[in-house]
């Protein structure tokens, strides 16, 4: 059983670095903060397919990541439509309490 002994901020920080390092097409990661012990991420990537949805996939906690994860990937155009409230977020997600990570601001 995984234990949440790692602060969620440090886990997110580790993931952000890992994701930017491995995927050169990843432009931005948005951490949607949740009242639940889970990590919600939206990744903006020009290489993904356009679905006009924020499709959030669930992963259970693991030994390395002791939090449930919900990850969605959107194109830059889709992200702009999310910001303009033209594409809804998954149920219970809000842009009000978010933190954005840009490649330029994350030392990879």
């Amino acid at each position, binding site marked *: 059983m995984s234990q949440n002994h790692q602060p969620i901020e440090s886990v997110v920080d580790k993931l952000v670095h890992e994701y930017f390092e491995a995927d050169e097409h990843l432009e931005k990661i948005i951490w949607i903060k949740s009242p639940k012990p889970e990590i919600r991420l939206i990744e903006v990537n020009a290489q*993904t397919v356009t679905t006009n949805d924020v499709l959030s*996939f*669930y992963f259970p906690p693991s030994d390395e990541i002791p939090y449930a*994860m*919900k990850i969605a990937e959107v194109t830059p155009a889709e992200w702009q439509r999310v910001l303009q409230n033209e594409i809804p977020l998954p149920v219970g997600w809000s842009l009000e309490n978010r933190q954005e990570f840009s490649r330029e601001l994350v030392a990879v």
Partner: protein
Amino acid sequence: MIDLRAWQLAFLRQGRSDWETYQRIDDPAWPTCHRLHFLQMATEKLAKALLIAGDMPLDKITHTHAAFVKFMRVARKNHNLQKELGMTYSQIIAHFNRLLPIAREIEILAPTLAQVGPNPEYPWLDNTGQILVPVDYSFPRIKLLQSQPGTQLLRHIRYFFVAFEKLFL
């Protein structure tokens, strides 16, 4: 209150049945369209089984058909999968990148995504105005399934169904 786990397992069960049917009719004696139809449906439900636990409204999940490619792209981030495949995140990114074009070919078999093009369910008009029928069509683009990345993708799909609980629950 929606029982998400029950819905998740329901989509998984139906997806497994689609996959089993695909395997049973994966024989040249069967028309290609029927094999591809079951393959497309199996992969769509596989992806949707993970969307249900991802805060997606059930009615939206039911009506969307473009889920498999995004599933394949996001699944690379699953540490359980990385461990099972013995790959780092960088390695699994590179590996799956070779499979994604074929995953996309499977995904766009869904009539909604195929629009006026080839799909395994309904007749369509080609560029010359001729009516084409799925059962008579050879689906040349999907022959990519016989390539090395294609067989690797099918092997992964099989593994996702076999090990779903271990990887994703």
